[in-house]
């Protein structure tokens, strides 16, 4: 029974991780910008949801549409910022978004204080059995994450825009030759990634404690899944998220909650050592 519990929390957490990684991987795939401020943007969206919930008293899920509108705006501003970056683009974008992460972290510290915050709505148990407990929050986490991932998959694989996005991810020069405006695709990727960040924020605020320095962990999660799965591959990202979620649940069960943070860091280092030239090497070779 305890393993069923581990699997359930692993899968619901893992679907959420896939959602976090999806936005990162889309932005990176199309624009080659390593956005180290990804986690901070999710935190911002989470704080927005937290304050909406706190001051309106409505269900926290009402914050989702608001974040869906606000966060793409923030992501597009970031796109504007990164457009001016000179070569070497990847390294410079890494350093700039690292600076942005530091900036946003301090801004949140100033605006929201260092206290831990969590959206705790009055919600019942979805299912209660001996040795097994599933909360409604977990079910909503799973459903919303899967819905967003499914929608992204459908957009990428069954629409004309998705086809153009995938072309831009696979080979930018060929996409340009085929008449795709790669610059505009970057804009679309940032907008779409911003919407995914917008969905992730309210879910984050219900699942994990919000505090200004917490963004790095979400960023590392996104990076590790992206490097595991490759860019723009929705199904592989979902599988990677599940693996990471189950691995973290197992680590929490076997070693204790304090060791959970280690899992993604060790996996990231291991993956990088195993694939030193990163995710794009295959496409460029």
């Amino acid at each position, binding site marked *: 029974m305890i393993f069923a519990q581990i699997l359930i929390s692993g899968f619901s957490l893992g679907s959420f991780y896939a959602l976090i990684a999806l936005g990162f991987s889309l932005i990176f795939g199309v624009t080659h910008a390593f956005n180290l401020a990804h986690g901070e943007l999710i935190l911002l969206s989470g704080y927005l949801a937290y304050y909406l919930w706190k001051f309106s008293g409505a269900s926290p899920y009402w914050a989702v549409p608001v974040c869906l509108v606000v966060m793409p705006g923030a992501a597009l501003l970031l796109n504007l910022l990164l457009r001016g970056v000179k070569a070497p683009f990847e390294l410079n974008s890494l350093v700039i978004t690292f*600076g942005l992460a530091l900036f946003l972290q*301090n801004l949140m*510290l*100033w605006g929201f204080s260092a206290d831990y915050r969590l959206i705790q709505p009055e919600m019942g148990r979805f299912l209660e059995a001996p040795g097994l407990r599933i909360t409604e929050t977990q079910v909503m986490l799973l459903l919303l994450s899967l819905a967003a991932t499914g929608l992204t998959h459908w957009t990428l694989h069954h629409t004309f825009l998705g086809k153009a996005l995938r072309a831009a991810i696979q080979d930018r020069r060929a996409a340009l030759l085929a008449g795709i405006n790669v610059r505009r695709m970057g804009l679309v990727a940032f907008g779409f990634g911003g919407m995914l960040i917008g969905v992730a924020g309210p879910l984050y605020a219900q699942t994990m404690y919000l505090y200004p320095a917490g963004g790095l962990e979400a960023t*590392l999660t996104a990076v590790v899944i992206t490097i595991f799965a490759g860019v723009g591959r929705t199904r592989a990202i979902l599988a990677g998220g599940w693996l990471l979620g189950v691995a973290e649940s197992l680590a929490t069960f076997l070693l204790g909650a304090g060791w959970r943070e280690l899992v993604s860091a060790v996996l990231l280092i291991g993956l990088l050592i195993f694939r*030193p030239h990163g995710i794009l090497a295959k496409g460029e070779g």
Partner: protein
Amino acid sequence: MTGNSRLSQALALGATLLLALWPLAWPEADLYFQVFGMACFYGVLAVAWNIYALCGAISLGHAAFFGLGAYGSALLSHYLGWSPLVTIPIGALAGMAYGVGCGLLFRDLRGVYLGLATLASVEIPKVVIDNWSSLTYGSMGIVGLAGLPDIRLGDLVIALGRDLKAQYYLLLLFLLMAGLLHRYCLFSRWGWALRAIRENETAAAMAGVDIFRQRFLAIILSSYLTGLGGALYAHLLGLIEPALVFNLHISALPLVLSIFGGRLQLYGPILGALCLYPLDQLILQPRLPTGHAAVYGLVIMLTIFFFPQGVASWLLKACRRVSN
């Protein structure tokens, strides 16, 4: 060329004398001793970061070496009761050991991927120390660490632990030594090899540079110096906890100061530290007690956009224009 280096030597000597002599005019300015002392301290960290960056490696995780050096020295001093003068150089070896591990494991990583790996590498010692409560007291940390001892020279007693002016001179000396080391790193045969690797690794390898060996030496030296900084920090503060030393801020600050000052120039990292840290502490901190460190994030973004070579390169160009 010689005229230029003579000019920059004269400027460096002048700046050193200014830093060494201003306390004579203001003997009671404790706040300024503290702020400029810490500016010197971060200057050392920036130099240490830059030694590894000479070969083109942008590390986002120097807090790992800093924190391990700090814990190495703090634990030795706490359990064995040795003097900080002994535990600081020994404890810093913990940071260096991690540097050796990183140097070996990350030997094939470059650019962005090296940055990501170093960013993740901070989490490992942090989580281990956080959870190993029986040895490290976990997230509570250790308080009441021994401060730096008094040094007696005949009748003269230098109270490094209590007197802020003495601490300032100690940190200034630390910075001068780091500056000399940086000079050696830049202009020695080894430094040329490192910079050749940065500019074009394939060409450097063809010219007979042993890439792995030179990069490995760079990270060893850099991690030891950073570990020394961390160890000194623990005893200056008298307390230590994982969140304090394995902090994004500690990883970011040397990078920001170094790139802002000019990471290609001899005095760049030091200039960055001496300008930016006092600006933050003396002007921004009193007005914005929480969140004033946002300025470092802002500065690094502006630097990459507007003067990617850093302030020192820009100043050097201006000096050249004036002297011509």
